[in-house]
């Protein structure tokens, strides 16, 4: 077996301390050479530490405070710097949920809590094989992007769709401004608010993108980033910079809207 020379580095994200400790212990037992950089306890720290440490393997608990494991994986897929191989992600969960079933068919591995040594040994063997085959790793990011694009819209579709929104009501000072949805160029998430950029100017509304998205016409409004939804009517062109990053130019606007990896396929040539 030809092992890579540099040590394989891992990161564990698990919100329950006892379970994080259990996974750490089991991994040290089954894979002593693995260098575990940290055990973080929430989704926000998982994204932050993963981007900082650039581990080879990432164990992500599905249900975590801050961000779920799936949200963390999605954010990493969007923000992962080019040129560094994307980590192999192993999801950890106490209970089979629907999101995991989508992954079961794909190659991304997952382990069930309580982690069982025999099952974890299989995961370790699979990870080692994948890490040894460099070629397979190059496609890791594309693969996870494909999978995430396939499963992420699912939760919104579970409940019956709310009625279509035609007017945005925004409180400005002591009056309510009414902005026809058709005149909105794009929505941009800003912390707990949403910046509504329209032909008549910008306003902030106190709604999340997650709540708003199902109320918009999917033919007219496309999500292009986890924090951006654009009105196709105003899209003039999609362009790539030298680094290969895709962004949109809008009619009558100077700013460029970045398109994340997860949504780049929407703007491919015909």
């Amino acid at each position, binding site marked *: 077996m030809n092992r890579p020379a540099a040590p394989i580095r891992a990161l564990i994200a698990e*919100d*329950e*301390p*006892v*379970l994080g*400790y*259990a996974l750490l212990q089991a991994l040290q037992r089954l894979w002593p050479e693995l260098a575990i950089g940290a055990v973080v*306890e*929430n989704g*926000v720290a998982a994204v932050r530490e993963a981007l900082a440490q650039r581990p080879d393997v990432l164990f992500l608990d599905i*249900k975590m*405070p*801050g961000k779920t494991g799936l949200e963390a994986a999605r954010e990493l897929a969007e923000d992962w710097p080019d040129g560094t191989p994307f980590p192999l992600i192993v999801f950890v969960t*106490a*209970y089979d949920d629907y999101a995991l079933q989508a992954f079961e068919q794909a190659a991304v591995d997952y382990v069930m*809590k*309580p*982690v069982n040594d025999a099952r974890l040994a299989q995961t370790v063997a699979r990870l080692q094989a994948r890490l040894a085959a460099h070629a397979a790793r190059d496609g890791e990011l594309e693969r996870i992007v494909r999978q995430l694009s396939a499963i992420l819209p699912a939760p919104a579709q579970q409940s019956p769709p709310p009625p279509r929104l035609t007017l945005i009501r925004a409180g400005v000072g002591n009056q309510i401004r009414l902005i026809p949805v058709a005149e909105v160029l794009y929505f941009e998430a800003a912390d*707990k608010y949403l910046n509504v950029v329209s032909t008549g100017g910008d306003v902030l509304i*106190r709604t999340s993108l997650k*709540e708003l998205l199902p109320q918009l016409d999917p033919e007219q409004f496309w999500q292009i980033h986890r924090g951006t939804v654009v009105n196709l009517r105003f899209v003039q062109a999609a362009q790539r910079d030298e680094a290969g990053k895709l962004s949109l130019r809008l009619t009558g606007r100077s700013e460029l809207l970045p398109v994340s990896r997860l949504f780049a396929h929407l703007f491919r040539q015909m």
Partner: protein
Amino acid sequence: MTATSSLAAPPSGPAVSRRRLLARRLPFDFAIVSVFNLAIALLLTYLVRVDSSFVENLVFSLCIGSLVWLIADGGRILLWGENSPPKLPFFVLLAVANSIGWYLGVGAATRLLGIPPGKFAITQVKSTSGFLIFFIVTCASITWFFWNRARLQQLMAEAATEKARAAAIAQQATQAQLQLLQAQIEPHMLFNTLATLQTLISIDAGRAQRMLEQLIHYLRATLSSSRAASTTLAQEFALMDAYLGLMSVRMGARLRYTLALPEELRALALPPMLLQPLVENAIRHGLEPHIDGGDIRVEARRDGAWLQLTVADTGLGLDPSGQAATAGGGVGLANVRERLQALYGGAARFSLSPNPAGGALARLDLPLSPPLAPPP
């Protein structure tokens, strides 16, 4: 035709039960028919004024009426049982019953009274067609009576079925509610707890032992309390202690909890599943998803004629629009409201508001008088 008739009268089983039905029905119906026959004899004698005496008329009407009825109604029960018969075959049956009943009835009556055969029909009735009309009208009336009675019985049976169905629906609703309560033991909660236990067994057996005791206490109370009518505040607080104990092993330093139950309130009766959903809600929607975790304080206080139960957490808090909070804790809280309505009518209050210290504050106000023991 063969197929239909074999469908209408399947072999053995139903035939036997129809025969039993016939035996059960006949004596009572015979009495009713006899009353009709008596009435007919009276009518013939005093209203139609036929030439024969009342006794003769009575014998005739009894013989003819009973035979017609026996063939018509007996045939109906044997052929169709309790079901309403198809119209055309039933009318054929009636026609047959009338003709045979008439023929045999007249024969029997003349023999009984010693009247020479042949004398009856011609001599005693002034107008043959008038008498025939009378006979047909009478038969029609009696048929109509029995037909309506059968319809009435059918309607009553339908009403009874409907009532049973309504009761079954109410039963199902209760069952569904119970299942809902039991579903509050989320698989996530259970499996995460078991996973923690499994790990603790190898690293800290004493702590694992305590955790297992708490889990057993929690499961037993949660799975059975919805059936018990009442519990005490002391029991309910002990249950919350077990639950929060479990959660604090799992959440580690992220969860801190306090339970405050004054000594004098310990023995107070309380319906189960009122406090628990509020505490579980605070954990599940307030503290567990909160990165920094927080504190939870469960407190019982007496305020004049009221018992005040509060669950205060310093977790994520309520959504500014109030939407996420109700969507997340919707089922549990709707359940609490429904139970309060069912147990106390409008007398109890429930509120969920922002906690001044951050997070959410759930508050129950229950009247102390009439005593908290809920109606059965």
